[in-house]
């Protein structure tokens, strides 16, 4: 039976109540501190420069044989995957019985401006793989890369065909950089003097990275503030808003040489797609990867358009390869209510049978 429609007086009372709450909660909002994030208990296994390797404490009596190493994007903090209890990808994996490690990044120091892709895929990731193997006693490791963490994981896997990941999972990972149309235009070789920028700044400031993401949807920040005001009476909404807002604003600087190399080799040269990318004197050919691969892409990803991500599964050499396109955007694919009901169970289903 349908409930009777509330009358105008009731509606009015509700709106007045919310208006008062907006005022009260608005003042509270302005005075409150940033929400705590990344609360799942963990140990830091390795810390060297910008690199951090975390090992999360198991939450089950037994775990899958194959551990999971998450490789975070170099532009953002890893706590997007561990926002809060109940809204944490890491916690989900732990409760499903995975042994979870995360390769996260801190802001590279000015002294690390010379870091290159080589440092990430021939030093940091291999060192973390070695530590994971040492810690677990297992040679097999599943690598999960998010966004540019996925790109690094693909490059690493291409260069470590024999001792690389047992399973490779990528979230929203671009391969064809020519299809990232707005970023392409903004880094137009005719006008963008990347050498001058890197030589001038050293590391690329986080404000520039943040601004480039914001420019993709310039009205969205203002609209989100209006939505916040509309819902500020709702404590749960405000809590969730603040978690994501904190993360979105917490952009990392990028090592200068790494940015220069990414711009020239990937944005201008599109060399990952054409297999012309050379790292440490070796050619990166991701079509030679034979490990089982899952690539999750978002239907409404405004940062990595589907056309940029599509060639990964289309061209990779693995026989056991799956692409899943899920509703959501670049972030809601991996975190939040959308991820809880769509991506996480799908990943668990795929990874569980490949982790024994």
């Amino acid at each position, binding site marked *: 039976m349908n409930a009777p429609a509330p009358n105008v007086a009731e509606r009015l009372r509700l*709106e007045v109540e919310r208006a008062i709450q907006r005022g009260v909660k608005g003042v509270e909002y302005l005075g409150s501190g940033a929400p705590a994030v990344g609360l799942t208990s963990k140990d830091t296994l390795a810390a060297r420069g910008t690199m951090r390797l975390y090992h999360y404490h198991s939450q089950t009596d037994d775990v899958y044989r194959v551990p999971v190493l998450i490789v975070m994007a170099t532009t953002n903090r890893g706590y997007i995957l561990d926002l809060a209890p109940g809204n944490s990808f890491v916690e989900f994996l732990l409760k499903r019985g995975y042994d979870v490690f995360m390769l996260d990044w801190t802001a590279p120091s000015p002294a690390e401006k010379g870091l290159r892709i080589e440092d990430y895929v021939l030093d940091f990731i291999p060192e973390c793989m070695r530590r994971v193997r040492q810690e677990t006693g297992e040679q097999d490791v599943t690598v999960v890369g998010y966004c540019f963490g996925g790109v690094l994981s693909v490059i690493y896997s291409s260069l470590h065909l024999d001792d690389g990941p047992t399973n490779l999972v990528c979230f929203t990972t671009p391969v064809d950089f020519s299809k990232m149309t707005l970023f392409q235009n903004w880094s137009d070789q005719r*006008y963008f003097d990347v050498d001058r920028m890197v030589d001038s700044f050293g590391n690329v400031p986080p404000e520039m990275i943040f601004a480039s993401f914001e420019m993709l949807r310039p009205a969205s920040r203002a609209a989100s503030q209006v939505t916040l005001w509309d819902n500020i009476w709702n404590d749960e909404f405000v809590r969730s808003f603040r978690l994501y807002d904190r993360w979105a604003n917490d952009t990392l600087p990028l090592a200068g040489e790494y940015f220069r190399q990414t711009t020239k080799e990937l944005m201008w040269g599109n060399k990952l797609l054409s297999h012309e990318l050379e790292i440490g004197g070796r050619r990166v050919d991701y079509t030679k990867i034979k490990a089982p691969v899952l690539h999750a892409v978002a239907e409404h990803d405004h940062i990595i358009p589907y056309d940029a991500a599509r060639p990964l599964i289309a061209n990779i050499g693995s026989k056991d390869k799956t692409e899943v396109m899920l509703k959501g955007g670049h972030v809601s694919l991996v975190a939040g209510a959308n991820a809880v009901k769509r991506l996480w169970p799908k990943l668990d289903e795929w990874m569980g049978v490949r982790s024994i």
Partner: protein
Amino acid sequence: MSDKPKDPMDAFRDLVGQWERGVNQIANQAMGNEQFSRAMHGLSSAAFSARAGVGEAMEKYLATVNLPSRADIVAIGERLQAIESHLARLTELVALVAGANAPAAANAASKPKRTRQPPQKAGGPS
């Protein structure tokens, strides 16, 4: 017809949503052309020049008043970084040696068994 009660704020929310989509679409079109790229990098270039000029002047000033410049601090940072790397490797070596000497059973006991199986209903690799 829906029985859901009408919220007077709904029209406002729709309006905000339409405004957001419209502005984003127009802005993306505007930012997707060559002129935008040229103008943006023209401004950036001017900013880099200004920054370089200020940087040089500041370095001279700091040298005059006998204070370390950014380059000096970065050089110290590089040395600290190298020390940190050495320490990390030494710590790892010590841990390796300690691990080799520790009874294997004690290590294994503190860790969960790696025997978990996926739920029965899940299928095998496709």
